[in-house]
C-alpha cells in the first residue's frame, strides 16, 4: 500500500471512510472527494493526524458531470500520481416518493449510477493509459434483483454492477483491477433507524473484507460473505413466483 495514491470519492460515507482509514494505516496517500466541504475537510484532518500520510481533498457533486474530468486531474496533481479509485457515492432515497415523483427517482439514479459512471469514465481512461491501477466501487446486493420495496435504487445499483463488469472486461487487458463491492445491510447513516434490517454489519468489518478482496484481486465481493448465499437463493426464485412475493 505504501506509495499508493488513491482518489476516494464519497469520503463522508462511513463505509468509504473506513476503507480510507485502512488504506492510510498502510501508508497510502489520499485525495478525498465529497459534496460536504466542512465534513470532508474534517475527515482529511483526522486521517492525516492519525496516520501521518498526505491527505488532500476536493468537492464533488454526482450530477455535475462536466466537473468530473477535473476531479481526476486534481487528484493526480495533488498526489503526484494516481494508482486507484475508491468510490462509494450513493443514496437510498424513498421508493414511495420515487414512484410518484420522477425527479426524486432521477436523483437516486444520478447519485448511484450516472454520477459514478461519469467519474469512473475519466478515472478508467487515466488508469488504462497508465497501464496499471485499480477501481473499487460500491454497488449493492439490492442491484442483484429488482424488488418492489426499492427497485429504483436497486436498478441504479444493478446498472452500476453491469457497468463495472464491462469495465473490468475492458481494463483487464491493461492490468487495471476492477472490484465490485456488494454490501448487505451496513450500520451507517443511510440505514440508521430504518425498519426491517437484519444481519447488519459494521463499516469497519466491510472495509476489512474489501481490502482483503482487493489484495486477492477478486472481481466481486459480497460483504459480509454470507450475502452471496442469500442473493443466490433470491436470484434463483422463478420470476412467476417472485412477482407474487412481498420483498
Amino acid at each position: 500500500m505504501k506509495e499508493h495514491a488513491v482518489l476516494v470519492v464519497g469520503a463522508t460515507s462511513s463505509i468509504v471512510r473506513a476503507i480510507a482509514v485502512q488504506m492510510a494505516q498502510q501508508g497510502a496517500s489520499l485525495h478525498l472527494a465529497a459534496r460536504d466541504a466542512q465534513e470532508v475537510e474534517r475527515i482529511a484532518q483526522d486521517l492525516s493526524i492519525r496516520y501521518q500520510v498526505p491527505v488532500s481533498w476536493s468537492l464533488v457533486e454526482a450530477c455535475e458531470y462536466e466537473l468530473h474530468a477535473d476531479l481526476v486531474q486534481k487528484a493526480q496533481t495533488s498526489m503526484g500520481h494516481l494508482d486507484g479509485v475508491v468510490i462509494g457515492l450513493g443514496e437510498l432515497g424513498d421508493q414511495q416518493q420515487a414512484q410518484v415523483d420522477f425527479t426524486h427517482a432521477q436523483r437516486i439514479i444520478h447519485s448511484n449510477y450516472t454520477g459514478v459512471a461519469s467519474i469512473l469514465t475519466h478515472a478508467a481512461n487515466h488508469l488504462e493509459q497508465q497501464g496499471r491501477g485499480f477501481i473499487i466501487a460500491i454497488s449493492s446486493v439490492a442491484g442483484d434483483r429488482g424488488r418492489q420495496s426499492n427497485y429504483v435504487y436497486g436498478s441504479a445499483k444493478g446498472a452500476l454492477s453491469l457497468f463495472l463488469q464491462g469495465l473490468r472486461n475492458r481494463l483487464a487487458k491493461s492490468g487495471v483491477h476492477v472490484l465490485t463491492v456488494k454490501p448487505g445491510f451496513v450500520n451507517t447513516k443511510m440505514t440508521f433507524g430504518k425498519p426491517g434490517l437484519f444481519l447488519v454489519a459494521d463499516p469497519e468489518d466491510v472495509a476489512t473484507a474489501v481490502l482483503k478482496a482487493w489484495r486477492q484481486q477478486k472481481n466481486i465481493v459480497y460483504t459480509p460473505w454470507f450475502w452471496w448465499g442469500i442473493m443466490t437463493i433470491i436470484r434463483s426464485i422463478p420470476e412467476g413466483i417472485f412477482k407474487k412475493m412481498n420483498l
Partner: protein
Amino acid sequence: MSQPGLPTLDASLCGWGRYPVIQGTVQRPEKASSFAKLIENDPGETLLAQGSARSYGDAAINSKGYTILTERMNRMLSFDEQTGRLRAEAGVTMQEVLETFVPRGWFPAVTPGTKYITLGGAVAFDVHGKNHHQDGAFSRHLHSLKILLASGDIVDCSAQHNPDLFWATVGGMGLTGIIQEVEFSLRRIETAYINSISIKAQNLYEAVSLFDKYESQYQYSVAWIDCLASGKHLGRSLMSFGNHASLEQLSPGRRVKPLQITHKKRVKIPFDFPAQLLNRYTMGCFNQAYFARQRAQEVQSVVDYDTFFYPLDFLQAWNRLYGKRGFVQYQCVFPLETSQSALVQMLQLCSQAGRGSFLAVLKRLGPQEGWLSFPMEGYTLALDMPVQPGLWKFLDRLDRLTIEFGGRVYLAKDARLGSDAFRAMYRDYPKWLAVKSRVDPDNRFTSNLAQRLQIEPVHERVGV
C-alpha cells in the same frame, strides 16, 4: 423553519452497571452539519449526549426525549507536535488517543480505569486517574470546548473565555449542552511502560501511611482493598504505585521498540452469570486468593500501560459477571481530616453486612476542580455491589455516614442517590445551577439522573 430531524430508533438503554434499564429513543449524528441541527430540528424535545455509556447508572440515558449517540463524531482535528495539544470531536475514545499517540511518545495526562470512554464523557464527569493527587482531574489539562447550547448556537469556551460555561460543563453531566469538540494536552513519555511496585498492607492504617509515604515519589497510586476482611485485617490491601518508565529502566529487548506494546487478546464474558454466584463465600475466596497471590511484601516490575491502567479491559463485557439484575458501584470520598475514621466505619459496615465487593478500590485524591467534580482532598473508596434485595437500604446507610463525615458520592457510578443527599454532598451545586439556569432555561438537556436528583433550572422572579 425546522427541517426533518435525524432518523430515530427506539432502544433499551442502560449504563455499564445495567441498572436501571429504560426504553428510550436515540439519534446518531455522523457529521458536523447534522450535529449542528440537533436543536433546531426538534424544537421542544429534550436531549442528552451519550458517549460510551461507561458511567454505571442513569447519567447517560434519557427516557423523556432523545439520547444522542456521539460515537460516530470521532474526528481528530488538530495536533501540535511541539506541545502535545490535541483537538478532537467528543466521540473520540481514550483508546483511539492511546493507539494514535503512544507510539509517538505521548500519553493522556489523565486517564480513568478503562480506556473505552469518550472525551465527552471524560469532560462531563471530569474524570480522575491514579495520579489525581499529583496531576488533578481531566479538566486540569483541558484547554477549550466547543458546545452546542439550548439556543442552537455552537460556542467556544475555556477557563479564560466564557469561564462560567466552561466550569459548568466540566463535571456538568451533559446538562449544559452537547460537547462537540475537546481540546486538551497529552504528556510526553519515553516508553509505553510503567515502573511499578506492588506492596502488601496488612490493614487500613498501614495502607494510609503507605499512601502518605509514597505520595510524592510516585505519580500513580491505587490500592485494591479486601473489604470482607475484618478485625486486625480490616482494610487489608494490595497497593500499587508507579511512574512512567524511562528508557534505561526497560529490559534490552523492550528498548528496541520502547513505545510499542503487544496488545493481549481480550476475553469475552459470553453470558449473564447467575446472580447467586456472587455471594459472601465466593467473594471471600476470591479476595483471599488475590491477596495470597503476591507472596513477597514488595514486588517491583516494569509493565506495559495496558496492564497497569486498564486491567479490567481485558475482560470484555465483565459487567455480565454481576448477573441480569445488574450492579452499582458505591464510590465515595472523604475529606482528609475524617478519612480514617470514616473508612473504618464504612469497612466495618460492609464486613458486618457481608456486602463486600470483589475488589474494592482505595485511592488518595487531591483538591476539587469543577463545581460538580467529584474529587476532594482525601480518600476515595469504590465498592461494586450486585443489585439484590436490601441493597438500597444498605446504601442509604452508607449515604448517611458519607454526609456525616463531610464526603460525597461519585455520580458517574451512581443509580440511586436521593436528591436531598445529593444537595448535602455537592455544596457548590447552587453555583452550577445558576449557570445551568442561564444557558438552558427550558431544561432542554436532561437525563434520568437529573430527573432523579431533581436537577432543573430555576427561574428568578422578576420584581416582587
